[in-house]
């Protein structure tokens, strides 16, 4: 145990380790907050689809050899998010889930194809693995990425806090909200944009394939135990941040991949909540 603490404090000396922790906390906070809405609107799979799109966009950015790939990834993901959340959900002629499956798998395939054909890197499969499952070491976060991440997270948090009640009203009963004067179209658009931003941010932390775990697990855990929207939201945020912190620390100490360690923690938390929910249901 003492060696562990020593090792930890040794690592914490490095600024990039601290950055990684800051990024981890912020990203997991944002993703859990919007995750509640996504899960309740039955859109969990959209998070997954979007992360694949972000991966595809990332590979395009890599092919174009852009220094900051965010300028491609963010707009593309936002555009697809708006298309998926604001169009498909409504139009009954296009089957929503199959459209998402198409976009999601298509982006994944094209992304990998592009990376393979155009990559100059010696270790293509290594690169791909990193974007899909997150880097094995969080020390690879660049300082610009950290700044961008902090800024975007703050915007997301601000939007969520300011529009919390509107988001609740639209999530709970969109028709009523619309009939009583809430601009549902605008807020659906806003939610879509914010979700795209979160997906792109979270991809840095846990990789494209594991993003939806960050979005879905904390809110599902919280819903097992809590019964009002407010308490579920707060609990999801707390669970998510705790799991990410513990996950990152374990990853540093044990040298495990960050993304999968965090998700493993989320699974543990979910199981605990599940059992707690069962016990409560009995009592």
């Amino acid at each position: 145990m003492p060696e562990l603490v020593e090792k930890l404090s040794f690592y914490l000396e490095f600024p990039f380790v601290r950055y990684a922790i800051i990024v981890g906390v912020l990203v997991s906070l944002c993703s859990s907050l919007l995750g509640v809405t996504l899960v309740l609107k039955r859109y969990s799979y959209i998070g997954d689809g979007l992360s694949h799109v972000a991966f595809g966009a990332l590979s395009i950015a890599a092919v174009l050899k852009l220094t900051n790939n965010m300028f491609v990834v963010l707009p593309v993901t936002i555009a697809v998010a708006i298309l998926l959340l604001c169009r498909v959900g409504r139009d009954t002629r296009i089957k929503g889930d199959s459209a998402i499956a198409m976009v999601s798998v298509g982006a994944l395939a094209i992304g990998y194809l592009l990376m393979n054909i155009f990559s100059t890197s010696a270790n293509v499969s290594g690169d791909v693995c990193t974007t899909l499952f997150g880097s094995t070491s969080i020390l690879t976060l660049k300082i610009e990425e950290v700044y961008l991440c902090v800024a975007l997270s703050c915007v997301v948090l601000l939007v969520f806090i300011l529009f919390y009640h509107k988001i609740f009203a639209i999530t709970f009963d969109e028709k009523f909200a619309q009939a009583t004067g809430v601009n549902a179209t605008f807020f659906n658009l806003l939610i879509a944009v914010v979700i795209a931003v979160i997906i792109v941010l979270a991809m840095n932390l846990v990789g494209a394939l594991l993003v939806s775990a960050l979005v879905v697990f904390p809110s599902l855990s919280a819903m097992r135990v809590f019964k009002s929207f407010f308490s579920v939201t707060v609990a999801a945020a707390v669970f998510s941040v705790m799991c990410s912190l513990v996950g990152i620390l374990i990853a540093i100490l044990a040298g495990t991949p960050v993304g999968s360690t965090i998700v493993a923690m989320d699974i543990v938390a979910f199981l605990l909540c599940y059992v707690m929910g069962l016990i409560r249901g009995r009592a």
Partner: protein
Amino acid sequence: MNEIIPLIRCRQLTLGYGNKEVVRDLDYDVNVEDYLCVIGRNGSGKTTFLRGIAGLLPPRSGTIELCEDLKRSEIGFLPQISVVQRDFPASVEEIVLSAFQGKKGFLPFYGKARRERAMECMALTRTESLRKSCFRELSGGQKQRVLLARALCAAERLLLLDEPVTGLDPESAETMYRVVKDLHRNGMTIVMVTHDVDAALNDATRVMNFDQIAAKGK
């Protein structure tokens, strides 16, 4: 009688789903201080008409006009079947308060006046004791009363009700009718879809019969 001022004006209104027309070429005015009862067989288009008025179903052709400077934020709405998901975690109070989201006066939290108004509406629908309860764990009739409280909270000038007494016990139904009647007496315009023809006709000032409208359209 005071003069007739239209509040909602439908002209040549056609509403429908997919390639099916439900309401065809309807000319109809809902007037200020009407207590309008909408009756008719199952599937005759009552809910469709109400959804049109509520702005949830864009007209195929024709117009629905809100007159007298009526704003959507002054409308209260009780949908027929609630589309609310089965396992949504929300307390009764959160749901009733959400009625204010369309109103002006943007604040990230609710002021005292609105909380009090919400309490009043919960008292009127006898749901104040359920205030902290979880919505998904209520009985069907209790849920209906909560959604009614939400509709009352939102309604300032116009109240749209789609089968409000469905699932209510006789006592709650009677309170419901009394509450609506009181609101009407205080100047609220009411549009109520109902199958409870006798009870409704006691209070209503006008009746709209969709069986006849459908027959005429054909």
